[in-house]
């Protein structure tokens, strides 16, 4: 563990693309993740252990950078929900794909989160990122003050602002579109999760059947009995490879498209939050304008000042968010494409392997006397 902290201004001391979380350690109820990042200098890696609280600490820091203009226009990389060692059914549901398979998908999601942060033009400049990635001390033990950027924890009245008519056509259409996509991607991810879960059930059922077939095996010298026992063993093998097939299909689903859809859905959510923040600002600006118009001469100056300030802020947000949106569109298409291609390739591989295996079994049976 190195204590080498570079100047924050000059981006990070590590390769943003190469951050990995290869390992997860369970410690009581909490999960601790090993974060590995390669030094820019070329030699060595940083190995740090972080809990989910640390990740949250990092995100809070990112949210609360008040010195960055237009910070509210940023689509913050979404941090997966908190996971426990033995998650309750509710948490599992919330986690979706990330709750499956020994936390590997979860690690993957955290990894993506860190990569997204570390490669983000604006966010990577934050000192907290560097600290998070390189400091051997856990940074997040002290509670960060929650600020307005806390996730979509809006009150009902705030929710109404979401339907507020936009002044900018671009944003209006983006908002509409985002709303649809958020819903669709969420449903798709959920449905796909159902598929994977059932596949796992099928795999288990195959396994049970395969195991039960072994019970039919009887000892004895009787040739008929022997023949039947041998047959049972063979059938058991068939079902075992079927189990493996379905298991790997499920795994492929989970690791590629499943994660992709999950990320997509969370990112859409993040974009929605950003758009919402912008809308809030818009409403604020409109209010300020109205106030400025109506204000009595005494207060007029103050009001005007507020209005101008808000307007500048809004403009900044709009600028940043426009950039963010176009960047996001590119990134997510690429990401989805990657997921789809990988998925397809893996499934193809599995299907071919299974076909091969089944074929072998078939030949074996045909060859059986």
């Amino acid at each position, binding site marked *: 563990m190195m204590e080498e902290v570079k100047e924050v201004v000059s981006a990070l001391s590590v390769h943003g693309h190469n951050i990995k979380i290869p390992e997860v350690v369970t410690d009581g109820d909490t999960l601790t993740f090993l974060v590995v990042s390669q030094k820019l200098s070329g030699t060595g890696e940083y190995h740090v252990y972080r809990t989910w609280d640390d990740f949250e600490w990092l995100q809070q820091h990112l949210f609360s950078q008040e010195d960055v203009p237009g910070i509210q226009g940023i689509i913050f990389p979404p941090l997966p929900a908190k996971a426990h060692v033995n998650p309750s059914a509710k948490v599992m549901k919330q986690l979706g794909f990330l709750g499956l398979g020994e936390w590997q998908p979860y690690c993957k999601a955290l990894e993506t989160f860190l990569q997204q942060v570390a490669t983000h033009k604006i966010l990577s400049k934050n000192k907290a990122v560097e600290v998070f990635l390189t400091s051997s001390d856990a940074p997040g033990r002290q509670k960060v003050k929650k600020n307005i950027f806390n996730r979509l924890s809006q009150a009902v009245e705030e929710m109404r602002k979401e339907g507020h008519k936009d002044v900018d056509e671009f944003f209006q259409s983006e908002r509409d579109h985002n709303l649809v996509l958020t819903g669709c991607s969420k449903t798709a991810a959920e449905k796909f999760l159902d598929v994977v879960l*059932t596949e796992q059930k099928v795999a288990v*059922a195959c396994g049970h059947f395969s195991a039960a077939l072994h019970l039919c095996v009887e000892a004895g010298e009787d040739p008929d009995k022997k023949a039947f026992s041998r047959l049972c063993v063979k059938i058991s093998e068939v079902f075992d490879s079927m189990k493996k097939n379905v298991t790997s299909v499920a795994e492929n689903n989970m690791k590629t498209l499943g994660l992709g859809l999950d990320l997509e859905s969370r990112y859409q959510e993040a974009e929605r939050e950003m758009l919402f923040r912008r809308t809030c600002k818009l409403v604020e600006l409109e209010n300020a304008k109205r106030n400025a118009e109506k204000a009595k001469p005494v207060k007029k100056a103050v009001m005007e000042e507020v209005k101008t300030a808000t307007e500048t802020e809004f403009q900044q947000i709009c600028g940043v968010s426009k950039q963010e949106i176009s960047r996001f569109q590119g990134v997510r298409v690429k990401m989805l494409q990657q997921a789809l291609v990988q998925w397809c390739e893996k499934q193809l591989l599995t299907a071919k392997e299974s076909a091969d295996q089944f074929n072998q079994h078939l030949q074996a049976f045909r060859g059986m006397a």
Partner: protein
Amino acid sequence: MDDPLIEPISSQTENKPAGEVVSEPSDDFVDLTNNVSVTTESAVAEIPLDEPSDDFVDILGSETEAQREEVVVADVTVEAAVAKSEVTSVVTESPGDGKTESNAEEEAQETSTAPIIDLSGDLLASDTQQPPVSDKITNPLVDLLSDDSPAPAVDAKKPSGPPQKSLFGEPDEDLFGEPLGAISKKTVSKEQKENKTAEPADIFTEEAVTTTPSMSNTSTVNSKTNGVHSEEDADIFSEATVELSLDSPQNERKNEVTAKPSASAPTSLSAAASLAKPQSAALEEEEAELEDKFDILVSYFYYQISTTLPLFRNKTFTVRRRFSDFLGLYEKLSEKHGPNGFIVPPPPEKSILGMTKVKVGKEDSSSADFVERRRGALERYLQRVVNHPSLIQDPDVREFLEREELPRAVSTQALSGAGFLKMINKATDAVSKMTIKMNESDVWFEEKLQEVESADQQFRKLHALVESLVVHRKELSLNTASFAKSTAMLGSAEDNTALSRALSQLAEVEDKMEQLHQDQAANDTFSFAELIADYIRLLGAVRGSFDHRMKVWQRWQDAQAMLQKKRETEAKLLWANKPDKLQLAKEEIAEWEAKVTQYERDFERVSATVRKEVVRFEKEKTKNFKKQIIKYLESLLQSQQQLIKYWEAFLPEAKAIA
């Protein structure tokens, strides 16, 4: 030869001699063929539809032409007796037929087959005078079967199929001639024929569904119920014909044969004929409405059976049977062959729930599933029957496969649902009770019984597991479908053209995959679940055969005990010095000694049969499972290859997203 006359009354032991016939298939087969070759001569006759009695004369006439002189046709008494026996609902019907047929012939001849004639003469008398007695009539028939000489008479029922067809006015010359010719050829060697029997039969090509509007049906069904009787009369008819030709060789005789009884006969015949038309593609469903306020739904599924057995010289028979007919066949077979230790394959259970669902017309997948499951089960059931070297020789089996119209099995209707299950379970219950009593002399049987028990447990477990696998597969298919839908929606919401297109492509792929999953579920069901269910039933039958063996053992033991008692009595009498009674006692002892040896022989015979059957059963089991797994793997492989195709087609789409 006196036995047949006595036994009808005792009505307990009648099963045993009947079985003997079957246990010696070669014998009766030879008989059959011998006789059949005679029949062939009398065969050809053109028969108009309307006047059955006339064409009957024709048949007889042609037969006369072939060999000897005049045959007179006219008898109302016999027919009346038949009608009565039906009204009183005889337990087994075809025996009834056989009986009447012997009635018919009885009048005519007084030669070689004297015992039959006597017997049937008695029966005729009892029939005409006191109809209530008619339940007992079944027994003599079975006894009839027991003797070698009557056996051909029963077998002769088989060729009776064709003549009956001719009643429907079909161009029948070759129909008639061919199968018979085939059979007569088979006379050449028994072995040959047995080889043929071993070959798989292609049964049940399709099952038919048609719905007919209720109004017209009402009449159909009514005439159907009437038709049951008249139909039988027709059967009797043709059987009588065959009979005649069989017995004719020695002397001239006068035949008094049934004339058509009622006016309902012709109509029902034509109705039956139209029903029997094989071309109707689908299952016939008939509904009848009672005049009361209730609407009662009486629907039947007809299963169309196509048989191409080498045994029948590759001729394809197509007949239509109801589910209860299958049960009836099973009942007949198990009654005849079960006591001899044969493992009689059981048909699927009657499922009231499943069937009602289908009848009510719920067009969901489960009812279609049910129909298909049952069809498959019946098909496998029949295949097992015809692949059994002994059962295929049973006249009832042949009749079932060949005859256009089967006499309605009254008894099987009572045999529905729970009753049927009880019948199957009865055997197994008895076994467990009896095991305690029987001190098994043969370790092999003891071991086998245990094996069967544990196999039963295992199969039940396997069955439950496969069923749950199927449930999950179906769920998977459903989930895939909804994923496909949501992908399609996501695709349509997507702005990026390439991505949008890829997503809709993906939706299509997923749709296809849903189909694959569904097929896989069906494959699991029909390859494994059903096979295992079959074997659970078959294991029941195996246990039944063990049970029968034990019953025979029990009888032997009882007889021994009885003999012991008689001997003690003799000793007492000797001591008491009562010579008059002593003679009687000695006779009794002799009688019982004979019985004991007979029963012991029976027991040994049954034991040997059971043993042979169990070995055969196990061989078949392995063969069956192997065949099934190969089929299963083939389809599995196919679906994987299909999957590969889908993925390969999709991959460029995914890569094209920019």
